[in-house]
């Protein structure tokens, strides 16, 4: 993993220093252009994978890049610039997406569309979902853990999870997610029985 994806051998942090030191003027603008020019494609594609729409992805990417540029004075170099920008992009896309429940997923589960799941099984609060991670790791195999994590915590679309994990087959991540959710419901049922006993 390259911490600092700088194709021409000039580190991002060097360009950040030039921007921060330059203030207004051609040098600072050119350095900022060089710095953010490296990431336009990356940020746009990252946003696109969430919204699957060119114009919406452009809106998000513009927000990310301009907010990062405006906040560059606060970048202190304790983490690589790419990580810092990635965090901004990730948070912006998160806030643009509706959270997806760990147990119920109308976009992926046909049975959820029929309303066959007890509402009490919904885990809508993020804190409650975080407490489910132990159940996830104890119940699911690795690919199911990854798919559930990407769907419920990272809020990726089912198609995007299929691509990200390289899941073969016609149903792709959809089938993996359905299997994972069945296992989770069963495990939760067992857990509830144990707590009652």
């Amino acid at each position, binding site marked *: *993993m*390259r*911490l600092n*994806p*700088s194709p*021409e*051998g*000039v580190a991002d942090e060097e*360009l950040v220093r*030039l*921007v*921060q030191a*330059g*203030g*207004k003027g*051609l040098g*600072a*603008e*050119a*350095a*900022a*252009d*060089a710095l953010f*020019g490296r990431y*336009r*494609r*990356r*940020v*746009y*594609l990252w946003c*696109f*994978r969430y919204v699957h*729409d*060119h*114009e919406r*992805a*452009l*809106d998000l*990417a*513009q927000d990310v890049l*301009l907010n990062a*540029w*405006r*906040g*560059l*004075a606060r970048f202190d170099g304790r*983490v*690589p610039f*790419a*990580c810092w920008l990635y*965090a901004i*992009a990730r948070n912006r896309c998160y806030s643009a997406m509706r959270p997806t429940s760990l147990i119920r997923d109308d976009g992926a589960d046909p049975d959820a569309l029929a309303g066959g799941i007890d509402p009490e099984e919904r885990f809508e609060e993020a804190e409650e979902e975080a407490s489910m*991670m*132990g159940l996830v*790791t104890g119940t699911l195999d690795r690919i199911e853990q*990854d798919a559930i994590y*990407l769907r419920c*915590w*990272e809020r990726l679309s089912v198609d995007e999870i299929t691509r*990200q994990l390289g899941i073969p087959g016609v149903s792709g991540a959809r089938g993996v997610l359905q299997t994972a959710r069945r296992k989770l419901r069963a495990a939760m049922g067992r857990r509830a029985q144990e707590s009652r006993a």
Partner: protein
Amino acid sequence: MSAPCPELHELLELESRAADDERRRHLDDCPRCRNRVALYASFVEPVIVPAGADVADAERRLAEAFERAWRAESPDPVAPRETGPARGAGDSAARRGWWAPSWRPAWALAAVLLVGSIVLLRPWDRGPPETGALRGAPGGAGQDALRLEVPVRLDGGGLRLSWAAHPEADAYEVRILGPDLAELMRREVTGASLELGRDELPATPAGAVLGWKVTALRAGARLATSTTGTLRRP
């Protein structure tokens, strides 16, 4: 998951540790951490361009947005611009003032006028809203930003700069920017590359960071401009 998960940049460093390292094992065992690293990798090195994505248009319009924002704001990066007042007690007190009973008839009248305006003007009949005011409009192939190639070091200490040719260009203006990225030299060429010998490069110390930028021209008029590339002087 009982132990707190490391920060992302710490996770990236864990990747190089031995497989039996305890923290490295956490990276392997924790679905949250291993997927955070995988997602970051897909951010840094996106391999797949999904159907419907238009990277060339995005790069051009985002570059335009940046340039316009720079012209409009020119922030001093050391003292960032305030983007809005902090929300605090004073702010809420001001809001209470505007919502005092004596102002409520005025608010009611304003609401009636607003609803009337919306009904009369019917913005939903006017097509999609402009969502990217800073960006340019979608453009044709001739408006894509020039893509710079990675500079190649030549025998003898020179450099070859090259870029993707523009289909309508009859010349290219190449600018070399100094360590502070102020312009040092300018050349005009007809092809999509420029070789500069050691003596032709600006007189800056070896290892200095230089910038470079290319503008495609047709009959002297600008067609497209690259972002600023960087290179290190041999």
